[in-house]
């Protein structure tokens, strides 16, 4: 590789081929560009360009009251919007000093873990598609549909969910939601097992992914990796364990780690995390079922000053109308404070750095987007590898353009 002679920059003739992978290439699964210098099929050098769908979220957030920022967070990692929503609600609740009833925490865990599953299943099945195995994608996709139907039961929308409120949920889970959850818990493990049978010991898939796009634990940490990509490199860092939120410490679950940090390990870690999420959902669901009578009606904390009341109450109850008006018209000031709060999102540590000066909107809000931070390693990961490895590395990093650009 190194004994090739490269012509000086600017000369018309050159020994390498320049290839634009992106911004709208089917293999990038999102809008971002990689300018590759190829020697044959080998990547000599790459330059990543991001920012194609930058939407100025941080600036927008400076004029929005807290509850209006939730829809913005939807559009970060849009494969797992509820995780972002919950992360934002939890940040607000920490700032406002709201503690949630246990049932709400458990319901949130159900939604968050469903959302993690929907995120990982997309990523893993796309790794399959990019390596030439399409059927796994079709097997799992129907379950993302089922997960979206559960979201729909809870909040009314599917992709950009805007799920929940500061202080809890907008409504209690309906019976249909629980029935769909039962269906999911009964059928998904079988399908996931089948998916694993298709891939995990598949010779072609293993040859294709082992050793491809590998990163050591030290480099991964230095590059600010978090989430499954860091754990695949062998570091057991998980925000759910290190800084528990939403009563994650009430549950038993393990953090799968890999060894080599290559595409295969990332794939296995994500698969194993889906199993852990399934077990978390089952545990949380069991605890939810233990609430009987009026306890089973609790779906939000008693914080009328910040919790947007149900529409039904707004029309019939004086108090709800007052609070609705105060919240919507932005008359509720948020306390001054400075807070960094993070949750384990689909791709890693999704952080919210919120500075409030006591007005109705944040003075400054910064999103720590895991994708944006670990994407810098991409140039190093693909250097010297084949072009097709670059494609598969990209999909196994689970790069989501919405999260890259904010």
């Amino acid at each position, binding site marked *: 590789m190194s004994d090739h002679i490269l012509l000086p920059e600017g000369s018309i003739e050159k020994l390498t081929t320049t290839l634009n992978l992106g911004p709208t290439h089917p293999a990038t699964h999102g809008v971002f560009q990689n300018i590759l210098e190829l020697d044959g099929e080998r990547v000599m050098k790459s330059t990543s360009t*991001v920012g194609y769908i*930058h939407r100025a979220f941080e600036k927008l957030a400076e004029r929005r009251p807290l509850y209006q920022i939730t829809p913005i967070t939807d559009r970060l990692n849009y494969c797992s919007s509820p995780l972002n929503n919950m992360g934002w609600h939890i940040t607000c609740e920490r*700032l406002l000093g709201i503690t949630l009833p246990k049932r709400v925490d458990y319901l949130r865990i159900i939604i968050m873990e469903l959302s993690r599953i929907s995120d990982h299943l997309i990523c893993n099945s796309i790794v399959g598609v990019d390596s030439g195995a399409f059927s796994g994608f079709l097997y799992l996709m129907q379950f993302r549909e089922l997960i979206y139907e559960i979201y729909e039961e809870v909040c009314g929308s599917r992709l950009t969910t805007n799920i929940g409120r500061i202080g809890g949920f907008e409504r209690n889970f309906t019976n249909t939601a629980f029935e769909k959850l039962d269906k999911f818990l009964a059928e998904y493990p079988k399908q996931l097992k089948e998916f694993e049978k298709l891939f995990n010991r598949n010779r072609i898939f293993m040859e294709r992914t082992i050793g491809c796009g590998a990163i050591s634990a030290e480099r991964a940490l230095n590059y*600010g990796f978090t989430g499954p990509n860091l754990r695949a490199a062998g570091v057991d860092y998980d925000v759910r364990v*290190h800084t528990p939120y939403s009563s994650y410490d009430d549950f038993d679950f393990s953090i799968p780690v890999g060894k080599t940090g290559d595409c295969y390990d990332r794939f296995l870690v994500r698969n194993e995390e889906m199993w852990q999420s399934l077990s978390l959902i089952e545990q949380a669901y069991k605890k939810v079922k233990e609430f009987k009578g009026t306890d089973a009606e609790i779906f939000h904390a008693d914080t009328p000053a910040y919790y947007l009341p149900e529409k039904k109450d707004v029309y019939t109850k004086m108090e709800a109308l007052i609070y609705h008006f105060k919240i919507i018209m932005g008359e509720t000031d948020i306390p001054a404070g*400075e807070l960094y709060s993070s949750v384990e999102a689909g791709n890693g*540590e999704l952080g919210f750095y919120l500075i409030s000066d006591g007005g109705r909107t944040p*003075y400054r809000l910064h999103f720590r987007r895991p994708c944006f931070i670990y994407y*810098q390693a991409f140039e190093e990961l693909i250097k010297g590898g084949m072009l097709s490895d670059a494609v598969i590395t990209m999909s196994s990093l689970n790069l989501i353009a919405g999260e890259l650009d904010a």
Partner: protein
Amino acid sequence: MSLTNELIQQKLNDKFGDQLTDWVQPYGMLTFTAPKGLNLKVLQFLYDDAELKFQFLTDLQAVHYPHLKGAELAVVYHLHNLTDNIRIRFKVFTDIASPDLYSATALYSSANFMERETYDFFGINFLGHPNLIRILNVDEMDYFPMRKEFPLEDQSRVDKDDEMFGRGGADF
């Protein structure tokens, strides 16, 4: 022995004396301010020290405080010690006329994009950064949009005829 906020403060005070100021702990996170020229030294010490080991740069961004004359821009570092699981935050204030700070890219590869983003939105000039160019905004942009002198558009303005985007026109 696990690390506590007090211990970290003690160690930093031993090293840097009274140059580090404004020690507070909002929501339990140790926060302090370092003088402008010292940001890299503080980072290096936090990184290298055998006990502190703040080797994970969680986040890096800036805040604009137009009313603080001579210290309008603050760059905020969030660091994480993964072994003892403790986070700290420190800020470096700089005047807006010469917002030059040392780059942390030599310590943390992750600082590369984050510093580019901070430059892009606030115009902080990170000295020693290998490739300090705009990252999310267009290259032609000649201002730094997250600064407070650029307010968002007034939503109640009526002078804008923009029928394509549902604003203006006869029945609006």
